[in-house]
């Protein structure tokens, strides 16, 4: 970011979220909003992440639990369909994986450098013991 001189700021250490006026922001998708350079939306704030969540759409039931629970709004969902993860803002906390209810989970944590295709190739199969246990509990 360009370093401004003391007279180049607006007063009061105040940051604007958007360039210019906005209206009806709630129905505008994030990628279509005029976020300013001083909004963290335009910056990568994920460089402390050491483990990342990866998404396997084959098992996802679009329950939106991950979207609801993510503390950094880093689950991208459109029309109530899980799309993927915003890796510029995800801190790797793992909450999405914890709350994912499918068997096997549709979200799993992997080392930051893990290749996505390799991760999908070694995705665990359905845990039948766990499935039987849960059916028994429901009975």
């Amino acid at each position, binding site marked *: 970011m360009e*370093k*401004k*001189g*003391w*007279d*180049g*700021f*607006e*007063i*009061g*250490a*105040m*940051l*604007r*979220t*958007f360039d210019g*006026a*906005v*209206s009806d*922001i709630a129905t505008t998708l994030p990628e279509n909003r005029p976020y300013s350079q*001083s909004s963290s939306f335009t910056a990568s704030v994920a460089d402390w992440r050491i483990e990342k969540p990866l998404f396997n759409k084959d098992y996802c039931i679009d329950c939106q639990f991950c979207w609801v629970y993510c503390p950094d709004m880093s689950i991208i969902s459109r029309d109530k369909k899980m799309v993927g993860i915003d890796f510029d803002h995800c801190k790797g906390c793992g909450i999405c994986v914890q709350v994912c209810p499918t068997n096997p989970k549709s979200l799993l944590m992997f080392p930051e450098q893990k290749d996505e295709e390799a991760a999908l190739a070694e995705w665990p199969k359905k845990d039948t013991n766990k499935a039987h246990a849960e059916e028994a509990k429901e009975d």
Partner: protein
Amino acid sequence: MADTIELRDIEVWDGNMAASHALRQVQVDVVAAYPITPSTPIVENYAGFTANGYVDGEFVMTESEHGAMSCCIGAAAAGGRVATATSSQGFALMVETLYSASGMRLPIVLNVVNRAIGAPLNVNGDHSDMYMGRDSGWIQLDSYCPQEAYDLNFIAFKVSEDHDVRLPAMVHQDGFMTSHTAQGVHTLSDEAAYNFVGEYKPMNDMLDLDHPVTHGVQTEEDWHFEHKARQQHALMTAVLPKIEAAFADFEKLSGRKYNLVEKYNMEDAEVAVVCMGTSVETAREVALEMRQNGIKAGVVGIRVFRPWPLEQLAATLKDVKAIAALDRSSPHGTVGALFNEISGSLFNTDTKAVLTNYIYGLGGRDLTKAHLVSIFTDLKANADAGKPTTALQQYIGLRGPKLSFF
């Protein structure tokens, strides 16, 4: 719509009541307060006005002075006209948030009823709290009587809220000596008072939903210095001219004239006392008596403590031979703040005035006329000798052996 109050031309008010009416008349949007002696009646009276339908704004009772000022900061950032009042220990608890208010460039008016700071605990008036605020980035206006406590509130709102300023302002009055002493106060009508300050004009307000803003951001070594410089630039260049303009407008409205530096009998003064608060009025009376005894005595009152009127003070004192700086706060390890400020104002000028320092009135100890006679007598000796004939820093009105330093 709030009811108005038909005031008499002159009301018998103490400083607290005067400040309460000023807050009511400018129709503050949010007063958030935690009462503390001797400022309690300001917010108590104001709460009464609110309960009785004379105020449209909100009155918020908070859990502490830290909470009160924090609430004021939030309300000011949201885009409202905001004020509160405090004293002493409460002021001390506010200090952290005072720096936030000024750094965030939020116009808030804080009535500070000056009181000593413990230990030992003391509810009476001295200037310890006012002095504690002097590096906080606020504008500090000082009143010497209830009339001025009333008038300076209007000046404070007008200057503080100006978009070229956007800095919070304190209006100081002496605990008990001003705050609880009833005098005749010339009033403005509710309409005239409101129109003088005008409708609040928001700036960067959080309630402007079309322009969302983040207030109170963090900056480290790469940005912090520039923000502080910008704040200091506004305080140093914009504020004094705006105060002078507000004083001029106020004189047109009320006939009462205020100055950055108040001068009494200074035209031909050979010796001068510089002080603040109620002491100014006592010193004025004694200076006139000294003149009958052949001592050309004058008095300088500091009306604007921050930003410090360095050039105006230097011009006021340029022909004086001996000056006494009267500090009503224990300097704790150095000379008094006024001594330092005056030294700094005069050091690079041609004046050869002798400057000495008196610590007085701590914890509400009276400054008597006899004390001031002895100070003027010292000054006359200093003027004649062309050098200090006493220690640089003396205590006046203190029991026990004489105490002095340097």
